[in-house]
């Protein structure tokens, strides 16, 4: 994909997760560089980060500041309010999603049970 890779992660299966900007998209590669799944997003979506959660993926949007939930095939399942100050990235600790922000001096937490309620 001719675009700007912004974030890269490796999931539990060893697959490579990449979010791209400009030509926005989410791509899952195997370790040979072959595309397993991809979602070409509209130019109204600016994907900043991706994290795996229970074989699904959370992606932050730099334009609307929300957090989007995708399934393992990158189909959108749900979206969540991201805190209001440009969420940039995530990590998971215990039952919390910790969220970093660009325009604030804080780290936020988001209870993963809220996402579980979507997945169940």
């Amino acid at each position, binding site marked *: *994909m001719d675009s700007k*890779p912004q974030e890269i992660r490796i999931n539990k299966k060893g697959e490579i997760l*990449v979010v791209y900007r400009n030509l926005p998209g989410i791509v899952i*590669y195997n370790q040979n560089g072959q595309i397993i799944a991809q979602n070409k997003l509209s130019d109204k979506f600016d994907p900043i980060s991706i994290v795996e959660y229970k074989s699904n993926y959370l992606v932050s949007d730099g334009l609307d500041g929300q957090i989007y939930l995708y399934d393992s095939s990158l189909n959108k399942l749900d979206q969540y*309010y*991201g805190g209001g100050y440009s969420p940039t990235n995530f990590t998971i600790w215990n039952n919390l999603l910790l969220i970093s922000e*660009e325009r*604030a*001096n804080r780290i936020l937490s988001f209870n993963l049970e809220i996402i579980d309620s979507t997945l169940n």
Partner: protein
Amino acid sequence: MLPNYKNHIMHGKYLIIYACMLIPFACEKKIKEDLININKITVLENINDNNSNMINKTKPFLYLNSSQFEENMDNSIYDIAVYKDRLFIPDFRNNKLIIFELPDGNISSTFDVPMPHGIAIDKDGVIYICTYRKNSIFVIEDSGTRTIESHQFNWPLSIAIKDTYIIIANYGNDKSGNLIYSDDGLNTFHQFTND
């Protein structure tokens, strides 16, 4: 003796010029405030969208450089990682890696790192940080710190590690970036895809 009106007029002139110079800054601040307020209004409108997920369910976990939230104190945190009850935060604005103890949130240690962006920690606790436009990977391990440079780094933004496999996203200083990987401890790099 007559007062020196000429000097007074000159001072007044400079005051007007000075005031005119400040107006754009004041306008810019107001525009930024308006943009923030617009974002808030948009979010509030979304709450009425019959989607309960648009209600703010986030909670402050910890604050940086302060004991409280300070609106628009822009730390520019672009990545975050956890390893063994330590929270790792590359503070891009202040050129630091800050390590917090979990769950209490006390600062465990800090390191000076230029333009820290993406971070990854391997299974042995070695910390790798992309330094974006500095075109290097900053490594922190028990024996100390080191900086890895390569002509294949092109504004590295993000890094991921699984066992000995390390992959890096180069954002690129022109229209496209690329992905490179190393399986020998960052000694050599290979192109992951042709993008």
